């Protein structure tokens, strides 16, 4: 279930944002028992590195990620921890 969900999330992000790098982590285990976890949707952490974010404020970047995942927000995702960087920012942070 986790692997399939992660694959669906990665696929949707690839389609929408043509990212250089994606990393999706299922963080649901940390939220078991939490009210939001009861409907079966999960908590995920996503890192997306994409040119599409260049020149955009964090709000706009997160909106793009949410838009890419809009359908999955209804079925698979309850909460999302988002890190959205341009390739330049990612390389600067990784050094």
């Amino acid at each position: 279930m986790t692997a399939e969900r992660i694959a669906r999330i990665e696929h949707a992000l690839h389609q929408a944002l043509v990212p250089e790098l994606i990393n999706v982590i299922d963080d649901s285990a940390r939220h078991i028992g939490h009210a939001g976890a009861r409907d079966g949707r999960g908590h995920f952490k996503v890192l997306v590195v994409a040119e599409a974010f260049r020149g955009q404020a964090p709000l706009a970047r997160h909106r793009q990620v949410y838009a890419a995942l809009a359908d999955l927000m209804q079925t698979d995702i309850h909460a999302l921890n988002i890190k959205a960087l341009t390739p330049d920012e990612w390389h600067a942070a990784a050094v």
Partner: protein
Amino acid sequence: MDIMKHIKQQIESNPIILYMKGTPEFPQCGFSSQTAQALLTTGAQFAYVNVLEHPDIRQNLPHYADWPTFPQLYVNGELVGGCDIVLDMYQNGELQQLIDGAAQSQA
């Protein structure tokens, strides 16, 4: 009143308003808790709405500013963001600046 009008009025009449799950004292979600904590460190007074007690707001607020999740922080009528954005701004000092500015325009 129409729920979208009600939300608009709430956001426009409160310079700093946090829509969250639970309350700052008894948050019921980790993301809401962290966001409220960051906001409390600014020392400013802020309004909050517990969306768990207002299902109509919980259902409709995501359409108001095209933002699907909670918490949501609004300052001077504008969506600032959710937990990740508010925490980043807390860490780089921008949150304090923004809140100080909002508190000043209120005075």
